[in-house]
């Protein structure tokens, strides 16, 4: 199977280049990550992140034939050859397919991604009704792989100001949580022409999400909450 992979080692290379590989895959190499591990057994200078190899850790997000996705959950069968692999767009490249995610996580931390509840902790859990719990479905499953945020042009143009779809989905996850008491501060934090309103609902994030989540819908719900408290 033929691959064309983005290579860049800032210590050695003046600029990035594409390297071609022609690799015979074994029958057990079903996912793109298996193929990459196979390539790495031939050329151990190729650098990439991976960990759980089953779409849970979000480490091996990359640009696969022009679309962001997880190598471990992308079957090699059906990929157009040569398979063009590049690092996630819009983030600084550390080496080959590894990007610097600092900017992404700074935006994630800026929305305070934890439950804020000033009541004394109860003896047991903070209980929710099944209906209240159902509101978190589709919002809590994010694995922070950054496929969505790095597919978003608004994040490409303003990564220092726009929270990005992953961060906004997490912001909604805590706004929708019946146990959270900081809704007003969270909305204040997002009511900004850059932080929230750079989203123009082009839905690249929905297209890219390997977990099938819908950040655009969550962003719409945040705007709904703002409208309800203002109008």
């Amino acid at each position, binding site marked *: 199977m033929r691959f064309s992979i983005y290579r860049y080692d800032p210590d050695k290379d003046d600029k990035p280049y594409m390297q071609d590989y022609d690799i015979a895959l074994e029958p057990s190499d079903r996912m793109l990550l298996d193929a990459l591990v196979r390539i790495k057994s031939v050329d151990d200078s190729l650098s990439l992140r991976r960990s759980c190899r089953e779409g849970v850790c979000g480490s091996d997000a990359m640009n696969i034939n022009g679309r962001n996705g997880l190598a471990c959950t992308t079957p090699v069968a059906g990929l157009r050859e040569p398979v063009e692999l590049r690092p996630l767009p819009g983030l600084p490249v550390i080496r080959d397919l590894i990007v610097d995610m600092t900017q992404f996580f700074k935006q994630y931390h800026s929305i305070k991604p934890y439950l804020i509840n000033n009541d004394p902790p109860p003896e047991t859990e903070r209980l929710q009704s099944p209906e209240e719990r159902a509101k978190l479905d589709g919002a809590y499953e994010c694995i922070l792989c950054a496929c969505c945020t790095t597919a978003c042009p608004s994040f490409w143009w303003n990564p220092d100001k726009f929270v990005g779809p992953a961060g906004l989905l997490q912001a909604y996850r805590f706004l929708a949580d019946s146990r959270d008491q900081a809704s007003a501060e969270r909305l204040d934090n997002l009511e900004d*022409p850059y*932080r929230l*309103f750079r989203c123009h609902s082009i839905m690249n994030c929905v297209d890219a999400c390997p977990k099938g989540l819908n950040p655009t819908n969550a962003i719409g719900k945040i705007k709904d909450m*703002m409208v309800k408290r203002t109008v």
Partner: protein
Amino acid sequence: MVKLAVTGAHYGLRDWLVQRITAVVMAVYLLLLAAILIASPPHDYAGWRTLFSGQWFRIVSFLFFVSLCWHAWIGMRNILMDYIHSTGTRLLMQVLVILALLFYAVWSVDILWR
């Protein structure tokens, strides 16, 4: 490495809402105009003059132009915020857009009440 910039202007919702409301106003006006043009299409200059001589039609048309300018301001500002990253240049271009749109709005009054 890009750092987090200072944000927290605490506005944005009104503009977002206004953009949607002005879009609805324009859509309704265009449907109304299309209905009028289909029902009794003006055939000559005198016909067009008659159509725009009604005071209520002038006012509704003026509302359309105000919506158009307001909508265009928010859209243009969005584009400038996305792509122009030098604050000085962005402010200058935003001022130019505002002046141009105000000019068009006043001009539309001149045209409608001629």
